[in-house]
C-alpha cells in the first residue's frame, strides 16, 4: 500500500461527496485567501512606506517640536522650535551639507475661479536639495527672494495640476489668502503617493511667509517659530554625529540638563524608516494572525466532517480491515484525505487571495506585494491544519475493531 494508492483512494472518497467536500474546503479556501490577501496588502504597504521615506531625501534628519514632560514634573507643554534654533544649528554644526527651516500653514489658494485649501510651506533655498526635489520648470526660491520678501511661489507637480489643470503655470499670478504671488517654478514629480503627497507642496520664501501669510501664530514669546528643521548630513556615516550635535545645541540653548527629556524630536530618515517599517510589519503579522484564525476555524470544519465521515464509513473501514488492511493503512487513508482536502483548498485559496490582491491593486489605493514566502506560508499552514485536524478522526477510524465495524448499522 503506497502513498499514491492512498491519494487515489482519498480523491475518490472526496469526489464521492462533492458538495460536502467542496463546502468543507471552502473554510480552508477562505482562510488561505484571507492570509494571502491581507499579508500581501501589508507587505505592499510596507514597501510603499519604505520607498516614500527613502524618497524624502538622503541622510535626512528632521527636527520637530514634541510634547514632553519635564523631569521637574511641572507638566506637559509644547516647546516651540524657534528660528533662532535654526540659526544656532546652522552655525554650530559640522558635516552638514544642507539645512532647511520650514514653517507650514494651511491657506486658501486661488487661481482664477479655482480655489482650494492647501498646505503652504515657507522655505529657504536649501529645501530643494535637503528634501531631494528637483525643479522641472523655472527656478527655485533664491536667497534674494528670501532677503527681499519676494511674492514668488514654487509649486509641486500635483499642486500645479490641481490649480492650473494643464496650463503652463510659469509667470502666472495666484493668490494665497488673498495676496498675489507669481509662480516662478514647478517641481518634478517624486512619484510617490498615499499618506501625504509630496507633489502637493506649495512653497513660498520663508521671510515672505512670516511677513505676509503666517500671522501672529508664527510668533511665540516675541520670536519667530518653525514647524521643522531638516538637515542633510554630508555622509551617511555622519548622521548620528549630527544628531548628537543638534541635541547638544538644543539642550544648551533651551537651558536643559541631560536628565531633562528633550522636547524635540530629532529623527533620522533611517530611524523613521525602521520605526515605520516595524509598525507596518507588526500590522502585517497581526492581519496574518487574524486571517490565521479563520484558517483554524476552517480546520475545525474539516475535523468535524471527517468525524462524520468516519462514522458513516464504519462498515467500509470494517471491510477494509477484514480483507487485510493494517491499522496504518486506514490511518494513512484518512490523514491523506484531510491533507488532500486542505492542500487543494490551500491552492485554490492562494489563487483567490492573489485575485483579491490584484483587484485591490486595480483600485490604485495600494499595491499589494505577493511574495513567495507568503504563498509558502499559507500553503504549509494549510497542510499543517489538515494534518493536525485529520489525525484524530483518522486515529478513530484506525482504532475500529473489524468485527464491530462490520456489524455497525
Amino acid at each position, binding site marked *: *500500500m503506497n502513498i499514491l*494508492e492512498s491519494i487515489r483512494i482519498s480523491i*475518490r472518497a472526496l469526489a*464521492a461527496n462533492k458538495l460536502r467536500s467542496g463546502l468543507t474546503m471552502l473554510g480552508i479556501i477562505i482562510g488561505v485567501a484571507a492570509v494571502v490577501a491581507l499579508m500581501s496588502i501589508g507587505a505592499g504597504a510596507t514597501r510603499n512606506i519604505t520607498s516614500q521615506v527613502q524618497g524624502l531625501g538622503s541622510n535626512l534628519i528632521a527636527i520637530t517640536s514634541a510634547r514632553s514632560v519635564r523631569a521637574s514634573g511641572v507638566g506637559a507643554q509644547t516647546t516651540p522650535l524657534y528660528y533662532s534654533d535654526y540659526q544656532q544649528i546652522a552655525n554650530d554644526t559640522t558635516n552638514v551639507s544642507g539645512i532647511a527651516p520650514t514653517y507650514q500653514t494651511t491657506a486658501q489658494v486661488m487661481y482664477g475661479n479655482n480655489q482650494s485649501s492647501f498646505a503652504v510651506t515657507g522655505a529657504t533655498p536649501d529645501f530643494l536639495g535637503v528634501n531631494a526635489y528637483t525643479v522641472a520648470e523655472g527656478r527655485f526660491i533664491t536667497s534674494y527672494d528670501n532677503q527681499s520678501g519676494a511674492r514668488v511661489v514654487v509649486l509641486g507637480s500635483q499642486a500645479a495640476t490641481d490649480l492650473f489643470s494643464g496650463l503652463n503655470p510659469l509667470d502666472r499670478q495666484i493668490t494665497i489668502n488673498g495676496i498675489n504671488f507669481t509662480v516662478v517654478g514647478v517641481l518634478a514629480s517624486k512619484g510617490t503617493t498615499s499618506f501625504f503627497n509630496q507633489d502637493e507642496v506649495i512653497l513660498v520664501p520663508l521671510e515672505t511667509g512670516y511677513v505676509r501669510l503666517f500671522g501672529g501664530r508664527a510668533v511665540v514669546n516675541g520670536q519667530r517659530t518653525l514647524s521643522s528643521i531638516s538637515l542633510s548630513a554630508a555622509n551617511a556615516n555622519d548622521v548620528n554625529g549630527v544628531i548628537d550635535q543638534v541635541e547638544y545645541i538644543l539642550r544648551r540653548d533651551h537651558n536643559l540638563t541631560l536628565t531633562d527629556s528633550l522636547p524635540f524630536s530629532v529623527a533620522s530618515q533611517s530611524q523613521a524608516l525602521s520605526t515605520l517599517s516595524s509598525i507596518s510589519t507588526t500590522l502585517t503579522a497581526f492581519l496574518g494572525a487574524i486571517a490565521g484564525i479563520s484558517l483554524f476555524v476552517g480546520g475545525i470544519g474539516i475535523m468535524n466532517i471527517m468525524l462524520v465521515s468516519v462514522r458513516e464509513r464504519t*462498515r*467500509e473501514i*470494517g*471491510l*477494509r*480491515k*477484514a*480483507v*487485510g*488492511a*493494517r*491499522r*496504518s*493503512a486506514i490511518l494513512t487513508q484518512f490523514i491523506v484525505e484531510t491533507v488532500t482536502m486542505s492542500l487543494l483548498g490551500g491552492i485554490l485559496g492562494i489563487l483567490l487571495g492573489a485575485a483579491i490582491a490584484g483587484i485591490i491593486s486595480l483600485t490604485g489605493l495600494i499595491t499589494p506585494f505577493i511574495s513567495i514566502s507568503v504563498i509558502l506560508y499559507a500553503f504549509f499552514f494549510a497542510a499543517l491544519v489538515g494534518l493536525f485536524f485529520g489525525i484524530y478522526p483518522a486515529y478513530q477510524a484506525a482504532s475500529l*475493531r*473489524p*468485527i464491530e465495524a*462490520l456489524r455497525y448499522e
Partner: protein
Amino acid sequence: MIELEQVTKIYRLGQTKVVALDNISLEIQAGEMVAIMGPSGSGKSTLMAILGCLDIPSKGVYRLEGQPVEKLNENQLAQVRSRKVGFVFQQFNLLPRTNALENVMLPLLYDGVRGRSRYEKAKAALELVGLAERTHHRPNQLSGGEQQRVAIARALVNEPTILLADEPTGNLDTKTGEEIIGLFQKLHNEQGQTVIYVTHDAFIARHTQRVIRLVDGKVISDDPVAHPLVAGTPRPEDNLDG
C-alpha cells in the same frame, strides 16, 4: 488445519456479559466442506468471526495451520486475514462506486501486490466465479447473485487457506442461493478449497460433507452428511425450514 480448543467468547453488553461461545472444541481438516447451523443467537457468527481472525477468543486456543491466533499482534492478524482467510458476508459488503475488478483487487492492495500482477489475479478470480464479462460494472449495476460472486472472487483472490461465508445465501432468492452453493462446490471439488459456511437452511447445509449445529454457544451435533446433495437438486417441498 483448524483447531479450536475449549474456545470461549464473552461479550460485554453494558453491564451484562453474553457468553457467545461456550467452551467449544473442534477440528476441521484441509479440503473439508462444512456447514454450520443453529438458531439466531447460537453463536454461529461469532464462531465465524473467530475462525476468520476478525476477533480473538476470550479463553481457549485457536490454531490456524498450527499457529495460535491469540498470540498475534494487530498487524500479524491483518496479515492472516489478508493471506489465509477469505471472508464472504451476507450483505456482500462491496465498496460502492467501485467496480467489480477494483473491489476484487482490494485485498491485494493491502497485501502489497503490485500493478500488473494485481490486475491479472483479480481478473482470474472474477473468471473463476463466472463474471469475466462484468469486471467494470459497479455493485449497483449488478444483481444480488452477481454481487455475491464478486464478493467470493474478492475472498478467493489471495488464494486463502479457508473460505468462510456467513450466511452467503441469506440475502438471495432460493435459485440464486443454490447457484452460489454450486460455486462453492465447484471450488471445493475442482481446487480442493476448504469451505465453511453458516446457513439457516437445512437443505443448503446438506450440500456439504459435514454439518455442525450450535445452540447457546455449544456444539450440540457434529455429523457427516451421508449423501451430500449436488447443487441443482430439486428442493423437497417439506424441507424448507431448518
